């Protein structure tokens, strides 16, 4: 039930297919401050932006083996923000020269009754977590440094515990398909964060 690969889909108008280019790494809690300092220097000059989000992952099990996955995210600290629904496709198996993980990506802002709607459609929540961290931007690149918290009581986002002693660092760009130059820019930026963090493309299928 996965969407067909982007290259096969005809461009018949409507929205352009956007791809997400992703590089991931992690940093230990004790080195977080130095990483934030460096990012503040490297990235666009903005007010430091923190976030506290609650993400729920919904699965729709069809006849095929692989379920359809949708991610619903809501902001826990900013009121009045819409919910964010996201579809992420399978990583495109491009040539080895591509430095970032590339996958099809569809982002939609929705109203508050997203979970009800999804459940009505037949989705079931697979897992959820709370993400708390910082966001930086540099041009079209977005750098997110956040800690993942496990939710101990389903539905209760107050009782949470951190999943590990590290922060996850993600560098991602959402751009139209075919712009591989983006991954070069990402790799150059990732070089500047070494040796604090090693941002690389990590294939999630390897970690299953």
């Amino acid at each position, binding site marked *: 039930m996965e969407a067909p690969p982007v290259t096969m889909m005809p461009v018949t108008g409507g929205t352009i297919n956007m791809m997400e280019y992703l590089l991931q790494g992690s940093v*230990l809690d004790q080195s977080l401050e130095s990483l934030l300092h460096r990012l503040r220097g490297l990235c666009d000059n903005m007010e430091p932006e923190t976030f506290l989000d609650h993400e729920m992952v919904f699965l729709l099990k069809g006849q095929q083996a692989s379920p359809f996955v949708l991610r619903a995210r809501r902001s826990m600290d900013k009121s009045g923000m819409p919910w964010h629904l996201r579809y992420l496709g399978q990583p495109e198996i491009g040539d080895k020269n591509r430095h970032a993980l590339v996958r099809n990506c569809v982002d939609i802002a929705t109203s508050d009754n997203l979970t009800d709607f999804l*459940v009505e459609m*037949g989705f079931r929540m697979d897992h*959820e977590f709370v993400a708390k961290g910082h966001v930086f931007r540099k041009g079209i690149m977005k750098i997110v440094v956040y800690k993942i918290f496990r939710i101990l009581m389903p539905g209760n986002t107050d009782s949470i515990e951190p999943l590990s002693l590290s922060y996850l660092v993600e560098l991602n760009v959402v751009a139209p398909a075919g712009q591989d130059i983006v991954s070069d820019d990402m790799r150059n930026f990732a070089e500047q964060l070494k040796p604090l963090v090693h941002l690389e493309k990590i294939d999630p299928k390897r*970690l299953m």
Partner: protein
Amino acid sequence: MNNSQRWCKREEKQLELTLEALISQVADLKNSLVSFIYKLENEYDRLTWPSVLDSFALLSGQLNTLNKVLKHEKTPLLRNQVIIPLVLSPDRDEEIMRQTEGRVPVFSHEVVPDHLRTKPDPEVEEQEKQLITDAARISPDGAQKQIQSLNKMCSNLLEKISKEERESESGGLRQNKQTFNPTDTNALVAAVAFGKGLSNRRPPGSGGSVQSGQPGAGAIIAGASGMQQVPMSSAPAQQQPMLAGVQMAQAGQPGKMPSGIKTNIKSASMHPYQR
């Protein structure tokens, strides 16, 4: 007679080889000097000290090899050779022009004393004489002591520098070691990608603690039984045994408790998409 002839020939051969080696060495030296001068003249505003040091090092290396060639055992005593100009003419000489790349057009009276001189400049000669008299004045013991103190100072300095370098290197290494943990990276990526380690597959220990913390959930468990069949398998199974507490802790619950009740009722009635 034969022997001395052969010896003469050998000498000539050696001389020729030496001269060729010297010419190539000097040509190399000349080239590096040319590039250095060019660098100084044209790139002086961008020049960095390490780059200048590089050029000097190159020149010094080449002078060294030149010295080695001169000291080589196969080199005949050039001191015993004499160069005498045979013909001096004020006319342009094409051959000389070609050989010197246009720098010496004429082999004449003014050019020859400069190019064929063996004595150093008068000032230089004076300084050298002065140095020689100074050196002769110092007793051999005094000279030895001076040499030793110079050597000791050099070695002290070298030691200090190398210690500094080692310390800064190891300090840097220690600092760089533990800023990230690859295992953590993998765990976090797996958690975000497909929920590994999150509510779904929690270890049984924490599952037990959750059960005790949910007294109010008992009412929902009844309604949840119909709902539980969905995550477990796609085949409908109304008679699924109610594995209450543990399943409650696992996923399958929507995010909000109140809506959970409503949803459960709906899904218990055999949702069409479950097929």
